[in-house]
């Protein structure tokens, strides 16, 4: 008999492999999108915190979570719920997630940002602090476009969002 705690642990292990479709180097777990996993009998309820409201990847993420959880022996049905309490904030991204963002060429959000104030990020390529903000809005809802004046590379950074 597999206990529900063991099953829960296995579900988490599978979720670690689910990538964000728009940032394929980071798992949704390291992005801090999974709030809770509840396993009862053969059903896994997975509560997910959406990142930005207009993110078109949500349906795809939901599908990938379902597929991943169904790989776990003992889980027969999966129920993915999007929840808004607590809100997703960028401080939920794990240390590993922050490293993986850099590998994708995206600077992780500053962890000490005060909302409404300008923020500063270092270049994810050369580590220089000599960077400028080109556009707060970028190719996806969660990213901004910056430029590194040291290594002369444009790069992206994840926008900080905090609970006000």
């Amino acid at each position, binding site marked *: 008999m597999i206990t529900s705690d063991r099953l829960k642990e296995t579900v988490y292990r599978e979720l670690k492999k689910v990538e964000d479709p728009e940032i394929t180097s980071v798992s949704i777990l390291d992005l801090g999108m999974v709030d809770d996993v509840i396993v009862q009998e053969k059903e896994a309820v997975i509560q997910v915190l959406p990142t930005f*409201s*207009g993110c078109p990847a949500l349906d795809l993420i939901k599908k990938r979570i379902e597929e991943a959880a169904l790989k776990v022996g003992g889980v027969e049905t999966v129920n993915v719920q999007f929840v808004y309490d607590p809100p997703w*904030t960028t401080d939920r991204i794990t240390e590993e997630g922050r490293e993986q963002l850099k590998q994708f060429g995206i600077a992780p959000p500053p962890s000490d940002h005060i909302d409404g104030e300008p923020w500063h990020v270092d270049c994810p390529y050369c580590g220089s602090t000599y960077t400028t903000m080109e556009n707060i809005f970028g*190719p996806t809802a969660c990213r901004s476009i910056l430029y590194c004046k040291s290594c002369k590379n444009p790069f992206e950074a994840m*926008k900080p969002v905090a609970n006000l």
Partner: protein
Amino acid sequence: MRTYETAEEALESPEYNEALTELLFQLADDDFLLAYRGSEWLGLAPHIEEDVAFSSINQDMMGHATLYYKRLEELGEGKADDLSHLRSPEKFRNAVLLELPNGTGNYLEKPNYDWAFAVVRNYFYTLAKKIKLESLKTSSYVPLQHTARKVLMEVNYHLMHWETWFNQLIQSTEEAHKRMKNAIDQVWEEFMGVLSTGDKGDVMARSGIIEDEETIKKRWISKVESVFTQSGLHLKEKPQMKSGNGRNGEHTPTLESALDTLSEVYRKAPAQGW
């Protein structure tokens, strides 16, 4: 004041549910229509960086509308997609200002769009949106508190963006200043419609769904007053509502043409995923 934790609880009180539903339609339709008007600017914004930023803002706003339509879905009003695409114009509760076209012409042909109007409409709207969201953070309907908190995080970025445009253009050349003043006059004629909470506003305030209309108006006017003072402008009389109150279903024919365009594909095949 009683709080309502779930849709089921709200549904037990018909009067509460009616006022709540009404407000959710106002919030959803406001974002939905302005995001649509914004999307018509795609490829036409003053420069490429603005094209990226403006379309990102519109995408966020469409997302906000979706969140409110989902809350309505939970209250048994119908599917979110149907609510946005299949309702007739008189069922829409958006303010008239937000349905008005971007200028003369059409986005496919001779789009003679007015950037000053886009900046002023979006800036003033975002100021009002933020004031309402701050009020909704303590709403008696708990799911709406959570939605407001989520939307607020993104709205701060929008506000920063429009504030920058507004301040730069109003302090720019004589021509820019003149165009901005014209846009302010145009927006002023209808802005009361954005601040109105309609016929059900009293019930909304009494049951703690959102604060009363007068409080929201005062906060907005005092904010705009300080913006005007900084820019050397003068606040004239109160904003007006010349073309009717959208909160009560009064609209211009431009709403119908907007809905025809934006719902064309969905209406052809509602069962299709796209």
